[in-house]
């Protein structure tokens, strides 16, 4: 089984809000000081792929589209023992809408040819649209399953998936090839790489492809965006908290209890 994991290299979603600024000229986020990390749900997808490698001998290829720096995310995927990595090197990738990103990634997946399973995080931790996975399934004509917590190989070229549905969990069987988006679960937290694998990943050569090499004109994709941002702003962070203080924890708890009862909520 050949598993392709689509990963993104994004400003750390846990970075403090004060690092989030808008660039006045472009009206786009300027997050120069935040570290870049693999999207948290992309990590869950990557771990799921690596578990399929451990349990079923799957071959794992990490795939990303983005500027030159995005290669760091691929090196992390290699350090965690992905078998290969493909970088669709395009500076404009971060400005594309989900439909255009899906076209770009689908073209790369087609070029890889023998792909059985494509995994994505349920959403990228920056724009959180969650659309690229389902759109990839449409582009590729693959089966589509979203919000998987766990994926196991099944018989007859299929995978068995536990996935979130409104109010519960569904168990489904998807025939391959398929696109599956992965959500977080205690069982899919990305493993810590070994030092020797980190060193090997730094020396690895990573295939660099381009939109043009995939017969796609990226600036045309950008110009024909289906979804566009008209304006961005930073919302008010709210009011002032009233801290409850006292001589002792007992006093604090008593005052807090009185205040809760005064809210008449239960």
């Amino acid at each position: 089984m050949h598993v392709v994991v689509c990963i993104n290299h994004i400003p750390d979603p846990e970075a403090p809000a004060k690092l989030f600024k808008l660039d006045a000229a472009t009206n786009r986020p300027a997050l120069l000081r935040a570290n870049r990390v693999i999207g948290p749900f992309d990590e869950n997808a990557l771990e799921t792929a690596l578990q399929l490698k451990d349990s079923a001998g799957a071959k794992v290829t990490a795939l990303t589209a983005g500027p030159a720096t995005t290669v760091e995310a691929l090196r992390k995927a290699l350090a965690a023992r992905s078998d290969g990595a493909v970088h669709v090197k395009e500076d404009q990738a971060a400005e594309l809408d989900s439909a255009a990103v899906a076209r770009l990634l689908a073209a790369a997946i087609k070029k890889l040819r023998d792909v059985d399973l494509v995994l994505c995080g349920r959403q990228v931790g920056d724009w959180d649209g969650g659309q690229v996975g389902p759109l990839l399934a449409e582009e590729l004509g693959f089966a589509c399953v979203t919000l998987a917590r766990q994926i196991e190989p099944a018989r007859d070229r299929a995978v068995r998936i536990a996935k979130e549905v409104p109010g519960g969990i569904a168990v489904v069987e998807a025939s391959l090839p398929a696109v599956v988006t992965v959500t977080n679960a205690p069982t899919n937290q990305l493993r810590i790489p070994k030092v020797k694998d980190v060193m090997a990943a730094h020396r690895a050569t990573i295939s660099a492809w381009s939109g043009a090499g995939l017969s796609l004109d990226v600036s045309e994709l950008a110009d024909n965006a289906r979804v566009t941002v008209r304006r961005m702003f930073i919302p008010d962070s709210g009011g002032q908290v009233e801290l409850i203080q006292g001589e002792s924890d007992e006093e604090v708890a008593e005052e807090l209890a009185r205040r809760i009862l005064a809210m008449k909520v239960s």
Partner: protein
Amino acid sequence: MDFLVIELAARDRLTSGGAELIGGAWRLASASGGAVSVAVLGENVAEACRGAVAFGAGRVYAVESPLLVNYDAERYLAAAELAARESGASAVLFVADAFTAELAPRLAYRLGTGAVTGCVSLTLSPDGELLLNRPVYGGKGMAEMAVTRLPAVATVAPGSLEPAQMGGSRQVDAAPLRLPDQPESGEVKVLEVRPEESEGVRLEDAKVVVSGGRGLGEPANFRYLEELAAVLGAAVGASRPAVDAGWASPGMQVGQTGKTVSPELYIAVGISGASQHLAGMGRSKHVIVINEDPEAPFFKVAELGVVADYREVVPLLTEKLKALSH
């Protein structure tokens, strides 16, 4: 501008989210000289169709079929596409949930257009363009988005829009649309659907929610929260890091990628207050934060705060509440 609200009648009646979308769509439609249609898709749609009329839908499409069960995405997609094409609406709206997160982008693809997911408000620009507004970067920013082709497809987070008022007295008959028989594609077979196991009060329905995060220090300490919750008749929630650590079940997760709750009172214990978490509880009426770290960002959105070791304060609070409410 004409709107189509697509309601998935999983529970045989119009959902509160559906009523909110009709309300939001109706306000924009009246401002722009348009109409609101509702399509109800499901196995049994009659009750939800009546609800849509009562909430003021101008036209109702009923797509009723025994094939529309068990979150079969292909069939629901075919039904949604049928309704969207039939209505000719300029905007197609869904209530955001774990199922429509998949349906909306795929429907947009099939209609040759684009989707915006997880919107929290809909507005019209001065020149009449529909703006779909949503949080980005975990709520640190807000973006006003537009779809450049018709129809715009969007999912709207439940609890975001003012519901329509009941009392449509007009007689509107639901127009049935026939879902063509589709041979089972067999690509995705649903083997089993089971409700999320939850003890006590359901998070989404709870008037009071007590949530814990990694600041609890260890999983067993959720018992302090359970004891407090029991006194308050509250549901217990958790942050994503607590779920990832295996301290709480995934069904307890509150946040942008977990449950969205809007209780009367939300008590956060040992949660730092990452914007992803705040996105799931931001519409709570009262917020109390208990955290040892006075720098925790959660304090910024709280009404009341306690900077203390929760291991001391929470059991005392439980005791005092018991004593005072007798």
